[in-house]
């Protein structure tokens, strides 16, 4: 990315995404809720991370903040070495467009719209020509095994197929990192397994993957497992070993 090289950041020392002493608080009547309570974390390029925890533990909020969908109440987020604290909505949208892919539990495909057009969605916000958009969308759908379902609308596809369209959409801008929020939550065991196999393949091809789930079988596909409770990270293990953050900042 332009800004990075211009300002001479050393990406290796910062990882892909780094959170320093991040809080996310909500005001609920009189009481203050800490959805994220002082979290510091670094995700390296090429990692396969699962964030687990019971509902309300803040794992989804953490993912939203890591993916620049949501702003923290305090703390800094560094993306590819660049502090995003003062980024405008436009700049954040641009990073999400260029560097991030999303997969949701609800698939979030546009209804009454063909798979081919759904996959192209992120490219509508780039300067890529229509012809190239379609070509890439075809390739992506073929890559997830839906080369013969280009013109089907979501209602004509099974849950597993819909989620594969969503994965093709997440991949079309060739992102650095894919964020998946309960990607198997709405699928049967077999389809869920196929989706996780697809994720594993993507990881092998070098993509960074951050997965949020409450199912331990799904989390088992990941190499690193971050466990959350009450807005805090309670354990962070990679290949069974504890992960230490190089720079804990002002963490408590």
């Amino acid at each position, binding site marked *: 990315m332009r800004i990075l090289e211009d300002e001479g950041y050393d990406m290796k020392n910062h990882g892909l995404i780094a959170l320093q002493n991040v809080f996310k608080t909500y005001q609920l009547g009189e009481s203050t809720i800490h959805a994220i309570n002082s979290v510091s974390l670094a995700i390296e390029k090429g990692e396969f991370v699962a964030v687990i925890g019971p509902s309300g533990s803040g794992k989804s909020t953490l993912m*939203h903040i890591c993916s620049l*969908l*949501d702003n923290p109440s305090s703390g800094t987020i560094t993306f590819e070495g660049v502090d995003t604290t003062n980024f405008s*909505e*436009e*700049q954040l*949208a*641009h990073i*999400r*467009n*260029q560097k991030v892919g*999303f997969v*949701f539990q*609800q698939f*979030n495909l*546009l209804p*009454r*719209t063909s798979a081919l*057009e759904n996959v192209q*969605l*992120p490219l*509508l*916000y*780039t*300067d890529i020509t229509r012809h190239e958009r379609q070509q890439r969308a075809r390739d992506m759908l073929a890559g997830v095994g839906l080369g013969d379902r280009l013109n089907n609308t979501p209602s004509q596809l099974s849950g597993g197929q819909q989620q594969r369209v969503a994965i093709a*959409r997440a991949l079309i*801008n060739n992102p650095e990192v894919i964020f998946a929020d309960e990607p198997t939550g709405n699928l049967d065991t077999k389809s869920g397994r196929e989706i996780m196999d697809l994720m594993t393949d993507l990881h092998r091809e070098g993509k960074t993957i951050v997965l949020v789930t409450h199912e331990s079988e799904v989390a088992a596909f990941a190499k690193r497992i971050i466990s959350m409770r009450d807005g805090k990270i309670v354990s962070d293990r990679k290949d069974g070993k504890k992960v230490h953050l190089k720079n804990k900042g002002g963490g408590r």
Partner: protein
Amino acid sequence: MKFNLRNVTRVALRALVTNKTRSTLTTLGIIIGVMAVILLVSFGSGLEKMITQQFEDLGTNLLFVMPGKFQFRDSREGGPPGVASNKLTQKDAERVARKVQTVEATLPITTTNATITYRGEETSTFIIGSTEQYETFRKSPVMSGKWFGKKDVDSGKRVAVAGMTVVEDLFGTKDPIGEKVSISGKKYQIIGVLESKGATFGNDQDDQLIIPISTLRQQFNIDKLSYFYVRVHEGADLEASMREIREVLGQRLEENEFSVLNSQELLSTFQNILGTITAALGGIAAISLLVGGIGIMNIMLVSVTERTREIGLRKAVGATPKTILFQFLMEAVILSLLGGIIGTLLGVLIGAIANNFLPVNTPLWAVLVAFGVSAAVGIIFGVYPARRAARLSPIEALRYE
């Protein structure tokens, strides 16, 4: 950041096509509004054009003398007096013709309504009593038969020249020339049929019967004139002539018992009235355009709420608030512009068809204004929903059920 107008337009069009019924019904509001504005303005403008044309046909060297004091602006005071206070007679017309040097001729007119019958057929019509000069003064030639002559007027003969409507009502397709009709009980011979003139203000100009003024005076016992025309010599000073006519008439009549008007003054009075009518009609139609605009805003607000998740998704994958704003604004503008185009086409088309039986003239400015206003309506009523969409937080939008 990337902002691609072509993509925004494409996305907006897709969304509209996906909701065909809703888009069509929303557009209908604008179509009706624009069509109403164009049709009503066309109608007002058509009337104005026709009246102007008729005055121009009469010629600029024509003056009118009417009983009573004619008020240009405020018709509540004065106006044509009742029969009792009308003191204008044919003698006045003759004196003007005789005494004012610049006057070429005068044409007395007395009008009344009467029932005409012919072999069991009956119709009520407008009777004009005048002289043989009516033909040249009013450029009213016969299409068959002949006009009555000076002798007929002098002798008070019972002859009549009929308008097309009267002829059709009484005779159907039969040739009326030489037939005898009964006007309020007296027999008249039809000697001519006038060329058709059409209608003004829904007032059928062919629904009239012209008889010698002497005959009318005799039968209906009306010795006062409804008004009379004065034709001045070509090139004469109109203002000076009017002054002289006033002097001559003033010798016998009080100042407030007659008015001398020229066609230009009368025309501008009519144009004034018609301009007001046209503006009022256009204003009423504009209200329906406003209602159409509110319809667009309403449907766009529903659309933003309904597509909250879609907005969240688009933002997640890289749409900026500005892109979302423009997408929804574009949808509103496309709806209203489409309505504007269809409404304009329908308005012009219906106007052209109506032109066969009503005076319709579609001015270019009406088309441009209706078109411009419909585009403005789209932007004005589209901004609020579009801003709402643009301001949605992607997280909350994605969570929306």
